[in-house]
Every structure is written in C-alpha cells, then in structure tokens.
C-alpha cells in the first residue's frame, strides 16, 4: 500500500534490543554490581584516601581486558581495550599484573570458593613468579593502555588527542576501547585553583584555571563519548562529612568554608546530612550519571580467619539506594578477592564472589 511504503523498517524492536544488548552489554562489576553499567555511563567513585577506589578501577580494567573465552576456558571478560589515565601517578603495575594473573588462574581452575583460593594461594607462593599462562597474560596486558599526567596541561593534551589515539588503537588491535578509567579526577584541583585567573588582553583570553580546565575536560569527554562510546569511571578523593563522624571533618569545614562558594556545593543524602564535602565544579557534577561512595571501616570481617583483610563499605549515592554493602579486599600477598555482603536488608544473604 502506498502510505506504508515510506515507512521502511530497518529492524524490529526485538532485533534492536538483541543487537544493543550484545554490542553494549550491561556490566556487573563487583562491588558495583547493584547497578548495571554500560557504555555512556560516567561513574564517580568517591571516598577518602585510602579506600580501595583504585582497586575497583583495576578490577574493572581486568574484567574488560580478559577474553570471554580462550582455549575452552570461560574467563567472563569482554576482550576489549581498557584505557587508564593516571592523574595520581601512583599506579603499581606489579600489583595489576598479580591481580590479572590471579584471575586468570582462578578462571582456569574453575574454582570460585574460598577454600580453593586458600589452596591455590599456598601453591602459588611456592611457584615462581612466572604468570600462569604466558600467552594469555601477554595478550591481556597489551590490551591495557596506560598514560600518566603530571599536570592539567598534560591531561588536557591527552584528552584532545584521545580521539585519534582511540582510532589508532582500534586499527591496531581490532577491538574498541570499552572502559576509560581516570584516577583521580580531583588530582590537580589545588594546583589549578592556585593558578590565579588573571585575564590579559581584555576578556577574550582564557587561562588554565580550575573552571576553564574542568569545563574543557567535561566538553572533551562528552564529545568523545559521542564517537567512541565507552564506560567512564573516575575516582575522587574526598573528605567525609560529619555524618560518618570522622574526626578531621569538622576542622576541615572551618578552613574550607570561606573560599570560592561557586566551586563547591553540598551533596545531601536522604539523611539531610552531608556525606562528603564536594569540591569539583558544578559542570563536572552535571556530567556524572552514577556515583558511589566507598570508605573503610574497622568492623571485623565475619569470617575472619585471614589476618590481612581490609573491610570497606560502599553506598550508592546516585542512583540513591538505601543500602550499604560491605566488601573485603583480601590482600594475601599477590591475591585479592572481593566478597560482598548485604547489610541493612531483610534477607541477609551472603553473596560471595571471588574475582
């Protein structure tokens, strides 16, 4: 019929859903697995220092670079590239390679129980430092792209040339970059704030101060995501507010309150109390689509035979979920697992995942 001819369909809704779910899958990355993440999301991981934020990024990168399947073993990864922008300049590659090796070993042995981890760890300690499976390890490590930025100019230069770099890497490896990790976004905050914004030659000239740098960063990230859809995860070091009764917070409030009100805004949670002191400009806050707060706690791990566990609490602020998860990072020399527990919930299930 004539009237229907101009409505030529490309695909049905079902086909589109199938395609999108395959090409842009939802990722469940422990301990962030309460909220499924996909490309186009920009996640901010906030927490005091130290609180396992970089560890979360590393695990996300490992999930991304591991292949889905390799020589018959299911690794559960994506097989894509991961890009790491190290603004803190504290990244330790030996720790990264240990964690990658551990996950490869675990998946290959098909074990996901705590007991097996213990056995493997004693075996691994006797073994040499050779990776478990060299070829797979090398191909995964090559999919991890890393750059350091020592100041805002280098960071901006990296972002401006990232488009061409992404194209080049796609040609070299044949796969896309799936995650972009930034550690940490507030690294140059004080340095940029310290450089005064004096305007020369009238008002037409902008200089590299906090507001203009952040606006450019946000602009570049937005433009990049249009052409190269990626999942962006950024850590941010923050001082916790008095809701968590940290001793330092009251003192910090007094010293920070007078300055630059347009740069700070209190983030209120459902308790009408400030969980942490926000210092990033509003333009960055409007870019974020997800936000999670992590902090360390001294509470003992329930099953604590292991001496070297660190316990952390995580809480989703955006989207606000009214629950606090507890997770541990088991640092048994070259091994690290996440174990996630549900807290403040009627059904107290123990969901354990050793990644």
């Amino acid at each position, binding site marked *: 019929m004539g009237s229907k001819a101009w409505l030529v369909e490309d695909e049905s809704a079902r086909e589109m859903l199938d395609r999108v779910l395959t090409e842009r899958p939802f990722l469940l990355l422990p301990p962030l697995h309460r909220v499924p993440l996909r490309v186009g999301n920009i996640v901010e991981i906030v927490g*005091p*220092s*130290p609180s396992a934020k970089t560890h979360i990024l590393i695990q996300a990168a490992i999930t991304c670079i591991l292949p889905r399947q390799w020589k018959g073993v299911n690794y559960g990864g994506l097989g894509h590239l991961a890009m790491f922008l190290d603004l*803190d*300049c*504290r990244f*330790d*590659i030996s*720790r*990264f*390679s*240990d964690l990658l090796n551990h996950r490869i070993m675990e998946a290959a042995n098909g074990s996901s129980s705590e007991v097996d981890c213990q056995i493997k760890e004693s075996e691994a300690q006797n073994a040499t430092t050779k990776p478990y499976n060299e070829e797979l390890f*090398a191909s995964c*490590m*090559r*999919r*991890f*792209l*890393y*750059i*350091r*930025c*020592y*100041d805002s*100019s*280098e960071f*901006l*230069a990296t972002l*401006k*040339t990232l488009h*061409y*770099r992404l194209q080049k890497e796609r040609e070299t490896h044949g796969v896309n970059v799936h995650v972009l990790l930034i550690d*940490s976004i507030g690294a140059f905050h*004080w*340095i940029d*704030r*310290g*450089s005064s914004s004096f305007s020369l*030659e009238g008002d*037409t*000239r*902008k200089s*590299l101060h906090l507001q*203009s*740098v952040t*606006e*450019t960063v946000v602009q570049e990230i937005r*433009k990049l995501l249009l052409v190269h859809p990626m999942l962006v995860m950024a850590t941010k*070091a923050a*001082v916790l507010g008095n809701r968590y009764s940290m*001793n*330092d917070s*009251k*003192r*910090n409030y007094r*010293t920070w309150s*007078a*300055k630059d009100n347009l740069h700070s805004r209190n983030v209120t949670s459902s308790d009408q109390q400030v969980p942490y002191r926000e210092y990033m400009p509003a333009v960055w806050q409007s870019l974020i689509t997800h936000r999670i707060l992590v902090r360390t706690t001294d509470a003992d791990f329930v099953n604590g035979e292991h001496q*070297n566990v660190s316990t952390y609490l995580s809480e989703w602020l955006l989207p606000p979920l009214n629950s606090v998860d507890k997770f541990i990072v088991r*640092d048994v020399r070259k091994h690290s697992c996440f174990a996630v527990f549900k807290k403040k919930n009627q059904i107290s299930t123990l969901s354990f995942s050793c990644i």
Partner: protein
Amino acid sequence: MAPLKNLETEYPIIDSNFQNFCASHGIFSVEDFLIHDLYMLAAFAEQNVSSERLKEGITQILSIIDDMHQPWLNGMELLEDAKRNKHFLPTGIQGVDLLLGGGIRVGQLTELVGPSASGKTQVCLQTASNVARNYMMLYLDTGNSFSPQRIAYFLGKTNELASAQAKNQILQKVMSNILCHSVFDIFAMFDVLHQLESNLRCQERGGGCRIRLLIVDSISLLIAPVLGGTSTRGRALMASAGYLLKKLAHQHNLAVLVINHTVGSEGGTSKPALGDSWKSIPHSRLLLSCDRGSNVYNVSILKHPSMKNLRSKQGPS
C-alpha cells in the same frame, strides 16, 4: 607560554594568516589551544577564505599537542620497565626492609612519619650510608640534621671485621657518593629539584654515575609554613612539590624518601602533618614510633600500594 609566532620557523603552516585567525578567537599560544574547542575552531575556519590552510594549521597544532603529554604505554611495556628499573633499595635496617619487601622502592615516593625524636633522621642516615656504598644519592637537609659522624658510625658498625684501610676506603667512597644540600624554604627545594631534573636529563644521554636515592629531611618543615590559613597557594605548592618528586622518581628511576612529622588530632591521638591533601600523594606511608622505656623502635605501614597495615619491630640501632 610561548606565543604562536615562535613556531613559524619550524612549522611554516603556522603563518601570520593562521596567527591572526587564532588571535581573533582569543588564542595566542599553544596552551590556549588546550582550553578551546578545536572542532568549533575548524568550523569557523570553514567559513574563512583560506579554509584548507587553516585546517592544516589546526592539524599541525594537534600534532604539537600530541607531544605535550607523556607517551602511551601498554601493560607489557610498563611491566618491562618495572622489572628492569624499579628495584628495591635496601635501607640496611632489617625491620624496615622486611616490612617493605626488600627496601625502598625505586620509582615511588615513600613517606616516613613519626613524632619528634622517634628516630626519623637516624633512619635516613642509615639508609643513606647503606645506599651510598653502591650509588650516589642526594640528601636535602632542612634542619641541619645531617651528620657525617653518624654515617661513619653506621658504616663502622656494619664493617666491624674489615681492616682499617678497607674501612677507610669504604668511608671515602660513601662520603663522596652523598650530596648534601641545605634547603630552608620550599622555593629553594624547587630550585634544587629542577636543577637535579635537568642534570639527570643530560646524564641520561651521556651516561655516568647516576643518583638513585633522594632524601628530604624533612618535607614538613618546608611545607608547613606555606600551608594554613584560607590561602590556596600553600596547598598548590604542596601538590606541585609532590608531583615533582613523583615525576623525578618515575622518569629518572630514583627512590624518594621524605620525612613528615606528626601533629595532635582531636581525641588526643596524633596524626601525620600536612593534612588530607597530602595524604594521597605519597605511594607508601610508614609510621615510626619509639618506645622510650624499652628503646625499641616500631615501624608500621599506614599506606602501601599492595599491603595492608603491618607492624614490624626493630630494636635499638
């Protein structure tokens, strides 16, 4: 911030037409390009008469910007560099070496925190005497605490069985390997570090005996006077100092050890000085404490890239 016209000799595409076009958008140097939207600039260039040349100029600027950041590396290259260059430097203090898994890590910024008279300078001097047997090192002294006699004493203790002549030789070698600078404010430290950076860059091409360890005793004495109050300048200086030290450590394969003191916090406990902004700058933080009664020193880890808080005892040394 060199103006654009300085680039004209090297890149003839950046001619006066291009410079005028950029000036009309408020861009006078390459750094200005970093905070402007280059796609919009290209769109404006489209409407211009000489659009092709202008767009070529923008592409040239982008390749100049590409040289302004660190090189991209992949995981294998990073690992290679870590294995080849980023070793451990043993301090000679058994407890510390055991705790850190070998010693102070090259390429990382290690901080030693402790209340006054807890032995921080002694740790520095012993580390200096141990490292200087094999490598050169730079000691930045802020409080006139460097003592050659103490270094000689440490050397004497570890070489008790050697002959007098051998001892003397070692002593001479160690003393000539230690470069000691007195700095009394943060700007003097920046001067010394920038000088060191340019020296190291020259030496990289020429070879020769290179510095492996940098000790700043103590960095809190330099930073504390500029911190405080509502000024942001102090914190900016502190962050810049931290980044400069980390850059030196990573790019020139140095181990950097800085000393910090403690201040009282609420509740009567003590915490490291320099506040929360400094907290996230060093790679590792060690807490040194001294039990006066039994003369036993305790070292524990406050923060480490891959270890949780551990304790290690160390007897009097």
